[in-house]
């Protein structure tokens, strides 16, 4: 059963990674002059939308978190609205953190905000899909040894990887190479994307490698 689940995880993650690659390549056929560097904002939108829809679809199809009790329609709606609010709040929070890190406050607000949206898609959206708007569960998953299934382990790894990727992405900005990808926020968003993809690929492998040691306590 464990093996089968790992395989499902791998398939889902590879699907996400492929969708990111497609998001960079496919729009060039429909939109004139589309390129990741040239029309970065468009790419940011396309990439976030792709990853978001794919994540939601995967969540609906695979249902990794079984909710034991059937809930009413109204409850589902309120849950959905809560998720939207949480997502929006996480965008604002990421935006604030990016500005605190030194992004310009007034100029290029769109770029910064779209970058925040991308980061939220890579991190918060997955949490919302998997755990729902439940802060307690979030804190549990992100504290030490808090994961209770391979999906949650994978979530930990991808989230940390995308944030680290964005963090490392800021390094080349002060260099004076005058490359097009050094412009704010291209290097950071590329870093986050590569980090996310690396996380997607590392997570199943890591879980497979450590499957003997991983013991998830169930409640």
């Amino acid at each position: 059963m464990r093996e089968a689940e790992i395989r499902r995880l791998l398939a889902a993650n590879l699907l996400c990674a492929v969708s990111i690659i497609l998001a960079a390549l496919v729009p060039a056929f429909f939109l004139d002059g589309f390129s990741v560097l040239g029309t970065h904002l468009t790419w940011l939108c396309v990439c976030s939308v792709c990853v978001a829809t794919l994540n939601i679809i995967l969540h609906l199809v695979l249902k990794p978190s079984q909710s034991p009790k059937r809930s009413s329609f109204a409850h589902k709606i309120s849950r959905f609205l809560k998720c939207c609010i949480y997502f929006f709040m996480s965008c604002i929070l990421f935006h604030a953190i990016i500005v605190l890190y030194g992004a310009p406050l007034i100029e290029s607000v769109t770029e910064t905000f779209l970058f925040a949206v991308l980061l939220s898609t890579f991190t918060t959206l997955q949490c919302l899909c998997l755990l729902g708007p439940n802060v307690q569960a979030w804190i549990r998953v992100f504290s030490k040894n808090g994961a209770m299934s391979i999906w949650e382990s994978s979530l930990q790894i991808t989230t940390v990887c995308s944030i680290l990727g964005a963090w490392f992405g800021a390094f080349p900005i002060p260099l004076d190479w005058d490359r097009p990808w050094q412009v704010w926020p291209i290097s950071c968003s590329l870093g986050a994307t590569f980090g996310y993809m690396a996380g997607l690929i590392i997570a199943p492998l890591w879980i497979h490698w450590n499957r003997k040691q991983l013991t998830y306590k169930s409640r």
Partner: protein
Amino acid sequence: MPYTTQVVEKGTSYSFIAEAKPPTVTMPRIKALMTGSIPGFIDVVVNLNSPALLDDNLIWQAKTAGKRIIFYGDDTWVKLFPKHFVEYDGTTSFFVSDFTEVDDNVTRHLDRVLKREDWDLLILHYLGLDHIGHMTGPNSPLVGPKLREMDNILKKIHISLLSKEEASLPNLLVVCGDHGMSETGSHGGSSEGEVHTPLLFISSAFEKRSGKDQRTQPERVQQTDLASTLAIGLGLPISRNSVGNLILPVVGGKTMREQLRFVHLNGFQLSRLLQENTPAYEKDPGYEHFKIAEKSHGNWIKLYLEGNNSEILLNLGKKVLKLYLEALKTLSSSLSKQVAQYDMYSMMVGTVIIMELLLSVPKALSKRAEFEVPLSPPLFSLLFYLMCLMLCAVHVIVCTSAESLCYFCSMSWLTAVGVMMLISALMCVLKPCSSWSEIDVLILAGTIGHVLSLGASSFIEEEHQTWYFSINTLCLVLCQELCRNNFLLKECDPQHCTNVKQNFDSMGETSECKNIDIPAAIDSKLGKATSSSEFIKGSDKWISLATPWIILICCRLLRSLNQTGVQWAHRPDFGHWLTSSEHKFELSFLAAVSLLLIFFLVQRRCSLVSKIAMALGLLGVYSYRAAIGNVTFPWQHGGKDISKGITEARFVYVFVLGIVFTGTKDLLKSQVISADSSMKSTGLWEVYSGLVLLAALLFRPHNLPVLVFCLLIQTMMTKYIWRPLKFDAAQITIMHYWFGQAFFYFQGNSNGIATVDVSAGFVGLDSYVEIPAIFLTAFATYAGPFLWAIHLLCYLSSEVSRNSAAVGHGCFCYALMRSIPVAIYVVLVTGLRYHLFIWSVFSPKLLYEGVHVFITAAVCLFFTAMDQNHSYRVQD
């Protein structure tokens, strides 16, 4: 400058753009102008105290040729050429806030001198514009009138020279600048504005040209070219070390034969200089060119003497001239590369010493490590003597076999032996390392990241970004740590968790201060925070959670106060907005509020006397700033004349000394009479507050918020993060060091020479006095790191009850944190010494690092003094 423009447009003049080599500081530039050589970076240090120039130079040549030279202006010249002028009047250039007097001192002699006939050379050095740039920037309203004044002086000189000329030879009027001005009005670096200076030759000997071609961009020449050109123009020998080329258009009015002779002279001098400096000079392309040109020059002379056709002769002459010019250019470029010589042996010795310090890292990370120099063991070990002998042997071999001059060899033998002994002692002290703990590795990784970034010139230029980035990350990690400590209870004990949660909720609603009682039994793993104080008030918990965010916001505000670095330095920032003259009211308000806040943040732990002294001192700071015209009192509406504010500044100095003295007295008392640690911490805090007051006096008014935020962050971190989370001394030290570095850049400093605020050295001084000026400037520049280091001492000594070795351990870590980057940087610079930016980026950074090491050494001495008191007391 209407008159000058008119002269330039109407002809009888030649204008150029002279490129100065960095460092663009006055003294090296004057040397370059007069000797034609390229001075090294060490001259920046000596800039403050210029010894007489001993190299061969234009002034000396002119004096030996019997020319009478008169000089008025910057007294750097008088120091460089102490006995060369028949008449001089030097003006101290260092009182930067004075705009008019420095120039009046020069101009007042002008009328008298121009009437006289008893001089050959008149040198005037005007300082006003430079001072205006330093104090108020290049866009200041004062610049216009100053330029107009300069124009009038030029007009006066030119007209009087023209009127004199009828009888004698034509005169030459040279207008040039020693260096330019950067975007912020300072200089020292290598930006476009600083490096490009005007060079204008005006003389009736030049032929009048039509107005058309004057509109084109002036030609680029090197600043060093002026020395050769003037020497040839005056008929003097070109000084020996000059690497300049003759600026040909200036002698364009002469006949072809003379022109060729001039360039030949210049080329001969350059090739001789090349012969002296390189063994393989014959293979140098410049030298080969010169030989070819010389040969064709000989042919030309032959033709000329034969009385050949003038047309052919002229064309041939032009060709020879071109050959010569090419040769000159290659010669001087290969010479400029030559001039920087490196002393590998001394570099290696320095590197070894610092590397040995670095290798003791693992020792520092063990918990018990203290900063003490174990003197006795190495003195008795055989290894030590063997090492000494071996190093001395190496020293003798290197020094006797080295052909070129080496700084380390030229030191006295006693010093050299001392250095050897230091190296071998350090070698002996190094012992195999103990194991590293995880968190130490983590922090070291951050440090190593910074150190590696020093290899890239742009990371050095933008080093502030590295530090801002690190402290931001540090804050976020601290935030996560706090969250874990505050919420982990829920994880470990589910039933307790709900309890706590309810408590939180009720607190959020009613804002009651309920106490959360946590049984001491469960504290083993969860929350050092909870165990440290048994009762944590709910509101405190939320404040402590908010602390990292408040600190982040403070840092973001400070970041936009002063834009530094190179790439984004031109961005608008609050600092410029505040200092512009329209926003004087806002600046005054901000300064007043900042001073008030400083008082409130500092006074908590002071005794009553120092509280009063502090309040009066801060009042004095405000009145000092009002006196020199930076800020205004609300009841005062313009019209007050600007003074130097000496009385006010000295008034503040009295209180600074008073507070520091009371602090020291307390410290001594705690050491000698009673073993009271509270007395000691009060004493330390008083010393600290005295230094804060001094910083408040020296900082420009728009930088006062930096001081406020510094105190605020220290207070919050101490209360809500360091105390509850119980970090060990090494971690606290490294956090202090990081914040200190970040505050160094928050103040508006950078790794370029141009951002050093020289005016701080003249607060409360009538004229330039060397020692206090250097001390004050260094303090004002390094106030950030220094205040954080002293705060570290205050904090660690107040924690002595918890960890008795904290101070010693902290000191060791602090010294290491400083020496690691310096060590690696020295190695990197040695490796990169042929890098294109070695003079403009790496060398200033090295200078900053050097001074910082000195300051760290002073701080460490203070630490050890405090710590020895402690250990002495424990022994009792």
